[in-house]
């Protein structure tokens, strides 16, 4: 039986943005959110555009501050943790594949993918070997490995991002549209990577507009519309 003990546990989470330079407007974006994801579980966040799927992901990763509630990832409450605890959490426990590749220009693709392992102290040869294996699996041609991914096509950049996200075997993973701009072959590779991560016990939260992909890898769907605050009339 999987998923009994939560890897990611969200309770009564709420969030609003205050725009100080626009008359101090307060925009509530989330209220009373809760979510429970156990090891080996994959949960899809659903809801229309603007319902708060990405907001919730960013709060779990610590990019957005919570106003109230708890976000437990392993033993760390991201809603309250000090920066250094979140830094440790991101290095060891919590991975994030965003839709956009953000890297230092001119760094070779191979090093971009190996970096999460190098930070953890993995020997350089082993980290680069793992990076190359992933790049090969994701069909990034070998002649591109020594080049910076900043000049790659959108689909190639996305695959580099995925390789980087899966380089270290994170116990918890956030995936933002991991199959969005991929062809059938690479989509299949990514779905297999997700299945392998589940099999080793990773807790996964994903946003998938690709319904077939969602049906295949996700155990449950959570509609975040339920967490959208009632709009004042």
């Amino acid at each position: 039986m999987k998923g009994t003990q939560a890897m990611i546990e969200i309770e009564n989470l709420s969030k609003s943005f205050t725009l100080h330079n626009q008359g101090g407007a307060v925009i509530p974006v989330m209220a009373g959110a809760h979510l429970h994801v156990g090891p080996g579980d994959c949960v899809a966040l659903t809801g229309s555009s603007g319902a708060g799927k990405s907001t919730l992901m960013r709060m779990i990763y610590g990019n957005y501050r919570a106003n109230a509630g708890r976000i437990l990832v392993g033993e760390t409450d991201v809603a309250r943790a000090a920066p250094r605890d979140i830094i440790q959490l991101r290095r060891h426990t919590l991975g994030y594949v965003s839709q956009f590749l953000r890297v230092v220009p001119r760094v070779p693709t191979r090093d971009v993918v190996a970096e999460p392992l190098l930070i953890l102290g993995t020997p350089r040869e082993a980290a680069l070997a793992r990076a190359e294996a992933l790049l090969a699996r994701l069909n990034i041609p070998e002649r591109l490995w020594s080049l910076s991914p900043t000049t790659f096509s959108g689909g190639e950049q996305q695959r580099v991002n995925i390789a980087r996200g899966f380089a270290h075997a994170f116990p918890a993973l956030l995936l933002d549209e991991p199959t969005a701009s991929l062809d059938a072959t690479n989509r299949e590779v990514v779905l297999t990577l997700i299945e392998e991560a589940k099999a080793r016990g990773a807790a996964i939260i994903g946003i998938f507009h690709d319904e077939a992909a969602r049906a295949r890898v996700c155990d449950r769907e959570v509609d975040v519309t339920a967490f959208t605050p009632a709009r004042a009339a």
Partner: protein
Amino acid sequence: MTPLLQVHDLAKFYGPRRGCEGVSFDLWPGEVMGIVGESGSGKSTLLSCLAGHLPPDRGEVIFDTRGQGPRDTLTMSEPERRMLMRTDWAFVHQHARDGLRMGVSAGGNVGERLMAVGARHYGHIREQAIDWLGRVEIAADRVDDKPQAFSGGMQQRLQIARNLVTGPRLVFMDEPTGGLDVSVQARLLDLLRGLVREMGLSAIIVTHDLAVVRLLADRLMVMKDGRVVEDGLTDQVLDDPQHGYTQLLVSSVLQV
């Protein structure tokens, strides 16, 4: 674990005008902290006070020394502080010429800092200097050239080599990529990131470039009028700024 640096209520005034005031934070081993703010916000004053270049009017700057554990660097003796600056601390200036001896060869610039901590064997010093020039991507055949013959980017890399050769634990950087071409900046950023990772360095970087802190710093402090208005995880401060000034700063960045 003990913080590498503990700063309590630091303040510096220029006559009646506030340089910085009420600054407190802990920096942990291996952490890179960015300090951003516009010109005149007090970020350079703060860096100078932290690094011992400027005496603050109030506060404590406690460094976890190798030999004696946490010590207030503001009350230690001048020789002790000088020794710290030559060994465990390093300071990378915005203008490389402020941190280099322009009349001394590249190898001499690196070797000099080694000699300041007691190295005497010429062969070893030269060997280490060449090794460090290689790490900052300066060819070994330039070891006898003076920095005047180097480009701005090379001078900056030489300054970094000179600073890191003694294996410091804390590096202060004042606009390290300022004034360089963007292509040179990228290379320097990659170099700094690699060195921070491999040497387990802690660093405090003052800059006005938000793209630089996003790529280099784990944590961020935002200053305005000499005070810290916001601090936190770098991407949290940039993606979800809480203070009006930070919101203005983030929303003012030109997109390319």
